[in-house]
């Protein structure tokens, strides 16, 4: 199933979702997964290794590629990676990370922050 989509991608000339560089990162993943599925520690190390070689800007392209290729394990891995990276960050950091802007009315955001003020404690410095 995975290989059908890959073939489709290579045949599809108008596809600009996935560049060659991405393909070389994403496609070897299933084999690696199968090899070290049992060992969680090894998997973590492999994931760290992989991320070190990937520029942060590429991460979004990797996610889109994995999504396009319908590659569930890679999608899970990349989403988990992003979740781990942002989980202890501030609201501002997350906005910049995803290119989002606050669209709340003045005062509305402050009210929301106050509701769970304790959730802002212990957050990483930007």
């Amino acid at each position, binding site marked *: 199933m995975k290989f059908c989509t890959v073939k489709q991608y290579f045949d599809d000339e108008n596809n600009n979702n996935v560049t060659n560089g991405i393909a070389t990162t994403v496609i070897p993943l299933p084999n690696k997964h199968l090899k070290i599925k049992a060992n969680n520690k090894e998997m973590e190390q492999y994931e760290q290794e992989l991320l070190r070689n990937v520029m942060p800007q590429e991460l*979004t392209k990797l996610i*889109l590629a994995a999504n396009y290729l319908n590659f569930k394990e890679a999608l899970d891995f990349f*989403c988990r990676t*992003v979740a781990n990276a942002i989980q202890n960050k501030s*609201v501002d950091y997350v906005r910049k*990370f995803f290119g989002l802007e606050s669209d709340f009315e003045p005062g509305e*955001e402050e009210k929301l922050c106050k509701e769970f003020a304790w959730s802002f404690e212990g957050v990483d410095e930007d």
Partner: protein
Amino acid sequence: MSQPTILLRRTNNHLPEEIVLEILVRLPVKSLLRFRCVCKSWYRYIATPNFINNNLLYCNDHNRGFFIHMPKTTGSMVSFSRPHGQICTVASHHTFEAIYELRIPFTFQSGYPHLVGSCNGILCFSDYRSFEFKDVYLWNPSIRKFKKLPDTCLTHLFNVSLGFGFDSQNNDYKVVRISQSTAKPMPPPDAEVYSLSSDSWKRVGLGISWRSNVVFHKFNCTLTFPFVSGNLHWMIEMIEGGGQERRFTSMILSFDVNSEKFKELPLPDDEGGCITKCLTSFKEQLALIKFGYGVQPHSLLCSIWVMGDSWNKIRVLPIENLTDFIGFTNYGLLLVQKRSRLVSTNSELERKHKSVLIDPETLHEKEIQVDYRLDVAAYMENLALLDGANVVSY
């Protein structure tokens, strides 16, 4: 990544909604509560019941569940005015090592909280006072909010039993209260159900044919009542007939939280005499545990029955020095309390109880570091109870 690098530009390569949700669903509750402030669409995503459910499912699938234990309020604790610590300890599912503590953020008139149940990390407590269980609270420790339920709609509360469950079809939390009547001969009990979505109680007819010759009935309520496959269960001990024809019988009352209907379930056929029996859950199935006299002195024979299509006896094992059955863990280990050695504290001899985990297959025992009578429940993080009337933050 120490500097926030712009992950994407708004014009192209914008992450579609379903991807953003895939990332969000993997986040812990504390992060999600904070990220509600990122923008309006994130605020909306995080509040939808579907997302809350998916977040819960993700936690369950990825072993982010815990075990919660607290001192059990008992009759003797109340009679001897021994204070209740009000602390719930959250412990590891596997090792039972304490991870952190939660202090109950509300107080009861009697000062004694009674754990009614736990569903998806929402805890239900009531006031252990003269068996009225009048005040009921729902508490979500993950988001630090609790809610006191409105007063009963029944005219009279007596010898009450409560049950707490989750209606997965309607995404609604429900509490059931069954109250006995003081009239003689004892009529069938009254029942009412509370739903979080309507924030109100509603009378529910028992709807089962109550045996006409019942002269007395009471709930066997040593443990929190099991919520299994969308049904709450209670065991009722009854005395049928009068005079010479008196018979002691038991029945299981089950309540479907979705259809809000009661049903009677049979007990296992094997009615060999036993000292006591408890209704509980074993690996997400309804279970019955019976204790009978063993061969050795100080040893009880414990029979475990599990309800599939019908009752099935899966194991019989001897347990020495048993004083209390607490429950089964998610992995099917038996948690009991045993009589321990005499301990000298402050020049007085005190008999301490010890809590022990027993594997029913291997009979391997492991002592865990808790020495009071326990109430236990499964616990996990949950975003539910986020918005609602009469919800208190702390």
